[in-house]
């Protein structure tokens, strides 16, 4: 097997707030790993043979890599903006390809059917045209000017509004969503999806948020996002094939799927194929 380009990427492996000396046994791309707080108080990530892996602490999570990351972890400038509440949502285990989990996060057309009366509702099902590009300088996938009618867009939203979104994919298993922020017009709420690939068909999903919302109790914010991801899980565990098909032929995209099309093209271009299938079967 050739070395997969995804080996050298950073992945979330746990919450900083839950780090302890006892450690957390988990896995990264099929390798068992142990994440814990070392004697000097810093986080360590080690393979079962004791070899230490690179560590980075950012956005509430401990990040690591089986390979040799060539770049620092992607930037989220909003994370350092004063006045935002940073929310560790926790973990949702999903029996699906890590790439399928990201693709689902980039999709809005499913809101009325999967997140009924929360993120969407019939008859407001239309997906208007939006812009998608692969930004060459940053080497990221971006979708902008995405608009969708939402009956309850966020915990702080009362009643239905047309919400605007931007999506960004800075790493093969991470995506950042920027969303209209009802209490602060002009600012964007940030909701991220950090996916830890446990295996090609199994992942831990770690959503994280940086919001302008001083009112909603933390438990409600966490509960709201967890409800959404549990609804997505019922889809993700029932898609065929389980691995994300990167070659056209197996699936039928429409204009509403252009973010997914760009994401798949970008994955294929970089050889990010862990959790993907190349040949239509």
């Amino acid at each position, binding site marked *: 097997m050739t070395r997969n380009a995804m080996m050298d990427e950073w992945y979330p492996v746990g919450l900083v707030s839950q780090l302890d000396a006892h450690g957390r046994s988990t896995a990264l791309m099929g390798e068992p790993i142990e994440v814990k707080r070392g004697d000097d108080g810093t986080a360590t990530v080690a393979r079962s043979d004791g070899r230490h892996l690179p560590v980075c602490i950012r956005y509430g999570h401990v990040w690591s890599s089986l390979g040799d990351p060539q770049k620092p972890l992607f930037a989220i400038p909003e994370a350092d903006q004063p006045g935002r509440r940073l929310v560790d949502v926790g973990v949702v285990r999903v029996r699906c390809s890590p790439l399928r989990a990201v693709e689902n996060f980039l999709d809005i057309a499913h809101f009325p059917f999967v997140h009924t009366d929360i993120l969407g509702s019939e008859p407001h099902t239309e997906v208007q045209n939006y812009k998608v590009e692969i930004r060459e300088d940053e080497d990221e996938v971006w979708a902008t000017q995405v608009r969708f009618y939402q009956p309850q867009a966020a915990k702080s939203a009362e009643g239905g509004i047309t919400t605007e979104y931007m999506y960004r994919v800075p790493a093969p298993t991470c995506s950042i969503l920027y969303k209209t922020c009802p209490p602060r017009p002009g600012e964007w709420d940030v909701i991220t999806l950090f996916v830890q690939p446990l295996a090609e068909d199994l992942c831990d999903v770690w959503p994280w948020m940086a919001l302008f919302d001083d009112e909603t109790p933390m438990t409600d914010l966490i509960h709201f996002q967890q409800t959404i991801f549990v609804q997505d899980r019922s889809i993700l565990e029932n898609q065929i094939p389980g691995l994300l098909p990167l070659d056209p032929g197996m699936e039928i995209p*429409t*204009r509403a799927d252009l973010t997914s099309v760009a994401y798949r093209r970008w994955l294929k271009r970089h050889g990010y194929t862990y959790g993907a299938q190349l040949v239509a079967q």
Partner: protein
Amino acid sequence: MPAQSPAGRVALWRGRSGRVSAFADRCPHRGMRLSHGFVRGETLSCIYHGWGYAQAGNCVRIPAHPALTPPETVRVATQHVEDGGGIIWISAGEPTGGPPRFEGLAPVRSMTVEAGIVALEEATGTSIAGGLLDYTNADTSVRLLLAPESPARTLMHVLIDEDSNPDERITASRAAEALRRAAEHIERGGTGR
């Protein structure tokens, strides 16, 4: 509901008119299982993005683009279905005749048995004749129509005399449950009846 056929998993559904259809259990849009979908009128809709399919398998609705008439090429594979004497039959290819009829018998219920046909035959002490397996438990006699789903799993349809009264139907159903337990015991390596 999901069902198994020799051609793979199918989504079996009934439109408002009562007509039954069998679709390949995979939405051509993004691969979601159609057996998780919902029926409205004569259309089965996928639960992921709501694409709707008519009984012939052609896509009739893409909610993300309400003004678009879906192209003819967007369709899901269908299988031939027939309702014969209260039993739904699927044919893997083009059928040459109607489904078998079991004169004088009426279906009671269907159940999944975690055992293969060999174990079921051993549990009844008889073998399949005329497409049916006979099973007698105390004074109750049932006839079983078996559809293998895998080497160790069988979908079992329980039939009894069509003149049976409700009490007899309940007794027949209990007898079938006893058979299921016996066959599953044999399948797990247990012996005898």
